[in-house]
């Protein structure tokens, strides 16, 4: 149950929850609070427009433009707001950079705080009890669950998102990507690499 708290335990009551949710939506529409089309649009935005491709554009820019990288590390909300292809994001974004010495990971032990502006809605594992409970105590074991092994001498730096600040990890740019365009670089940048549970793809994986 616990490892699957997000969904898989509810096949027996799936139709019941579907009905209960529909009933509340009906009541809210009938009473004049909301328009169905507006709800449809919110769902559509999260399914098609607001996702990790936004964060990948930000990271690709940081990898390509030292001035932008510096601005991003100083004030991420402000820096991201200057990217015309992204536009304004929420306040209090903080970008933290991986180096050969330090690997950053982001978690929310108390609920599910996540930089939705640049990564979209969090995946189920990010909201799961195993991730929320273990990351602040045994992040290397959590990384192993993702198939990631870091050298023992690498410092792991875990950021517990206990307020309205939102953390975005700037992963290390892979070797052998000199001269790549931002578009090509963005294809290397996975969602998990911006949370700290993964690493960017290797150039050979997208060639």
């Amino acid at each position: 149950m616990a490892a699957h708290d997000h969904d898989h335990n509810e096949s027996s009551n799936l139709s019941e929850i579907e009905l209960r949710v529909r009933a509340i939506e009906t009541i809210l529409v009938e009473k004049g609070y909301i328009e169905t089309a507006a709800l449809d649009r919110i769902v559509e935005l999260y399914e098609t427009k607001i996702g990790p491709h936004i964060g990948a554009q930000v990271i690709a820019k940081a990898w390509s433009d030292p001035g932008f990288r510096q601005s991003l590390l100083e004030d991420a909300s402000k820096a991201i707001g200057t990217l015309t292809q992204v536009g304004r994001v929420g306040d209090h974004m903080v970008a933290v950079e991986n180096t050969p010495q330090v690997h950053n990971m982001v978690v929310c032990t108390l609920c599910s705080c996540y930089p939705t502006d640049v990564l979209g809605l969090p995946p189920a594992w990010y909201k799961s009890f195993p991730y929320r409970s273990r990351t602040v105590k045994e992040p290397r074991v959590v990384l192993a669950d993702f198939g990631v092994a870091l050298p023992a001498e690498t410092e792991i730096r875990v950021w517990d998102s206990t307020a309205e600040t939102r953390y975005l990890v700037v992963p290390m740019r892979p070797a052998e990507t000199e001269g790549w365009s931002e578009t090509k670089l963005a294809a290397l940048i996975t969602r998990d690499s911006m949370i700290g549970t993964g690493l960017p793809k290797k150039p050979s994986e997208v060639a």
Partner: protein
Amino acid sequence: MDGVHDMGGMDGFGKVEPEPNEPVFHHRWEGRVLAMSRAIGVFRAWTIDTSRYAIELLSPSVYLTSAYYEKWFVRNVRLLIERGFIDADEVTAGRALRPAKGMKRGRFTLADVESVTRRGSYGRPAPAPARYKVGDRVRTKNIHPTTHTRLPRYARGHMGVVERLHGAHIFPDSAAAGKGEDPQWLYTVRFDAQELWGADADPKLKVSIEAFEPYLEHV
């Protein structure tokens, strides 16, 4: 409150299981719950802090066995009824039985969508100068409020270092209790893992929390 939601450091929940090519929503109703939560936000039925607290108030057994968006849904229905937006007999009937009461703004429409898909701003003018600066050694207080707090149990009563200042923000402990925004300085406070978890902890691990000034004291 010392609730089951405060999970940092607990054992026994098993492995993290990433799902390849995970959809944004696994079922249609999940998207509807998320969209309704965002939309209702414009009516100021609740704030981020009161909504989190309402989920923390679910009984531990419900918290641990309900799907993520199911918790949101139960929370939404409870708060909508409590705050007079809908009535319990309407939930039972599955339809509206009477008009909305005293709506302070018009219907949530397509034109409002963009405003609710961007995170809000929680920064506020500082009420006083910051008590701590970057590099200061601080201790988190050993406190156990029975209401909402954002100081996790695993980080209470420990020595850390101030790493960042974020300005003053709405203080969740106050806002969730309906006592106003009471802005407080917000800091990133970093701990060595061995301070949090003992001598056997990973010597190369550092963990930080976002700590409001009232959570901290001088060492």
